[in-house]
């Protein structure tokens, strides 16, 4: 009898913890939302299939089919913070395309079917997730950052699946290499970020002459120093030798802020996450320094300012998109529609932190399918490596990366939005404009 009460109490405790967790938390209800969106998309597809092919569709006699697209990101564990936007936006893109009549390649119109797996921020779990994707029959997979997916690139290559990393950090781990012909990246990662960063520094903070790099230990390594100098060369900005490296989960940033101030640089640059760079900025300002912050991270600046606190939020910029009404005019139309879908599906918080990497990677794949006129990974890969320019969700985007990665045209250089911290602007920051770049 005693044990029975104990079990009931245990269940009560579980329920209490869960209810207190989910009831007062908007974000988690967001996570539950995809359940509905994935399911209806699901029902819609079979209905369409059931319609007999020969019911002569008025326009062209297009066949209809479903195309499975896989998403392999980390929705749990320490990397969930970075990948949850990718998860939301990927599903929003699938819904957006399915709502607008599916995606036509050649003579067939496809309804997209999202197959999502969770890597749990753990290499073995990621590899298991990759294998379950292979068995679920997907031919195209959008993946998380490149330093993760290196561990299961061989699985996708053996099975002839085209897999593109949503964010290629620095290819330090050898993801885009000749041995992986089917490996691509839907955003050129740090290469593009830093190019845009130097361009923005030159454009909006012309008097910055020297920059010190500050990043966490898996963001930058010492060899990439000369790479940075090559990006800074056209704008004759000096990149200092000293680099400030802080551990990913550091508990206190004041010691690193001191290193930045002591370096005497006009600006500190890196692609640290919003909480890291927010705390770092707060610590730099706490030492009374006005060093310009150049955050190459794609997260909206409002998130970063939340950590920094408004007192420290001046003299700095980040490359995050803005979801505010006033700034929509400067965005490509598709981006605004997508942000709408995310807001409707996952709530305004998710829309406010719109990043677009995974959505754009999927969109690039779909564009390449159309260009190749086939849904065979090999043909799509050939179309992608042919290079040229496409209209991605960010605007005119140049396919490239041959020089940077040593693999012909496996990456893209898309324009970056620049938002600048400005205490007297509305909300403490101001959305400037998109900066177009191309990667060598």
């Amino acid at each position, binding site marked *: 009898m005693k044990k029975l009460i104990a079990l009931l109490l245990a269940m009560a405790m579980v329920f209490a913890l869960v209810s207190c967790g989910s009831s007062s938390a908007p974000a988690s209800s967001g996570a539950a939302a995809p359940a509905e969106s994935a*399911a209806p998309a699901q029902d819609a597809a079979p209905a369409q299939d059931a319609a007999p092919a020969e019911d002569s569709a008025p326009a062209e006699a297009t066949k209809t089919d479903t195309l499975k697209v896989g998403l392999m990101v980390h929705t749990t564990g320490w990397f969930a913070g970075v990948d949850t936007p990718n998860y939301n936006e990927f599903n929003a893109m699938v819904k957006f395309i399915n709502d607008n009549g599916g995606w036509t390649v050649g003579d067939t119109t496809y309804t997209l079917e999202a197959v999502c797996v*969770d890597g749990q921020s753990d290499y073995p779990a990621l590899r298991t997730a990759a294998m379950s994707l292979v068995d679920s029959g997907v031919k195209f997979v959008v993946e998380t950052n490149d330093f993760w997916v290196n561990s299961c690139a061989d699985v996708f290559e053996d099975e002839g699946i085209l897999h593109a990393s949503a964010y290629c950090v620095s290819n330090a781990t050898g993801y885009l290499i000749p041995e992986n012909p089917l490996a691509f990246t839907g955003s050129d990662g740090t290469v593009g970020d830093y190019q845009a960063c130097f361009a923005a520094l030159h454009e909006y903070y012309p008097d910055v002459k020297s920059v010190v790099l500050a990043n966490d230990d898996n963001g930058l390594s010492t060899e990439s120093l000369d790479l940075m100098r090559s990006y800074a060369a056209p704008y004759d900005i000096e990149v200092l030798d000293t680099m400030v490296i802080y551990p990913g989960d550091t508990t206190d940033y004041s010691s690193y802020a001191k290193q930045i101030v002591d370096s005497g640089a006009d600006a500190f640059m890196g692609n640290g996450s919003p909480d890291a760079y927010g705390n770092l900025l707060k610590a730099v300002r706490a030492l009374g320094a006005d060093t310009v912050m150049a955050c190459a991270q794609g997260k909206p600046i409002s998130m970063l300012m939340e950590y920094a606190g408004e007192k420290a939020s001046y003299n700095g910029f980040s490359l995050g998109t803005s979801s505010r009404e006033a700034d929509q005019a400067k965005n490509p139309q598709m981006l605004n529609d997508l942000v709408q879908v995310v807001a409707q599906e996952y709530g305004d918080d998710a829309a406010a932190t719109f990043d677009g990497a995974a959505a754009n990677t999927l969109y690039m794949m779909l564009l390449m399918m159309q260009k190749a006129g086939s849904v065979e990974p090999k043909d799509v890969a050939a179309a992608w490596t042919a290079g040229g320019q496409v209209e991605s969700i960010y605007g005119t985007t140049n396919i490239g990366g041959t020089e940077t990665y040593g693999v012909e045209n496996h990456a893209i250089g898309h324009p970056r939005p620049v938002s600048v911290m400005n205490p007297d602007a509305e909300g403490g920051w101001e959305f400037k404009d998109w900066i177009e770049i191309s990667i060598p």
Partner: protein
Amino acid sequence: MKQPVLKGKLSLLILCVLFFVLPLALNSRSWVDLFITIVVNMVGAVALRLIVISGNLSFAQGAFMGVGAYTAGMLAVYLNVPIWLSIPAGAIMATIVGLITGWPFARLKSVYFSMGTMFMGQALMLMISAWPLAGGALGLQRIPSLTSALSGVADVLHLKGYQACYYLIFLLALFCLVIMYRMEHCRIGTTLRALAQSEEVAASIGVNPTFYRLLAVGTSCFCMGLIGGVQSHYLTTISYSSYGMNTTLWIIMYMMIGGTGKFVGPLYGAIVISIVQGIANLLTSLSGSSNNESFVAFAHWLGANSAYTPFLTAAVLLVVAYLLPGGLVGIPDTIRANRARRAEKKEAAEIAKGGSK
């Protein structure tokens, strides 16, 4: 004494045959991957069992697996040592590290031993995380893969690459299980059990407590290092974060849920819990081959919401903790005990009724 041992051996034999034949039948990538995970977790749970028999609970199993994995990985990456040398080297390294770090704590009892091994394990993993050569936060990348090393063998046996990996891991796991079974079912096992019941008496009959405890820790670390080494080649990329507290705690859970009553206990625990943990991926892969709509929809829904699956694992854990004192392997005894208790209650009720008539 003979009859239960035979029964114990029978269930072990069945498990061996099952785990030999099934991957031939269910040969999709994720089924074979699940079998590999189960086999690796089995070795972890059984290796821990040997230390538990000697009266202590080690909280460093994950760390020693990590030591084996990183040793094999780094030997292969930096000195391109072939796998049949790097894997045993991982096992030997784990044993040496296990004995050195185990020695100061070997004399301690229960709580202090557990906490000591936990700190030692965490310190080891943090050392690896701070060691640039070991790949730092990005982890050790591009370890020569098991599939390529076994490609020759795979063609000869015309198995798929990943099936060949499975059978190598299965072979090594079998080797470890035989060692553990033999160690437990001979005089060494009896001596370890004696040590657990009373160290004082064991010493008085000539058993050197430190030596035998270290023997248990050493053998356990050897098996953890061996299976860690082969896993690092299978994964081709390892990070210290997957050998930390979480792995260690769950290896303890496989053993406890399975039940410490019999040798086969941890094996059941590893099977059940590994499946529950990987349920989301399993269903996603099954959705590929099945065509009944509702199942595919459910699989995609669970795949999308796989963040909720740990609640399922925690629920299984709490059920076993409260309702099955003997663990999975103890179910027959728990049922017998409940039935006996109910019978007693009925009897008592009758006597009371009889008495009052």
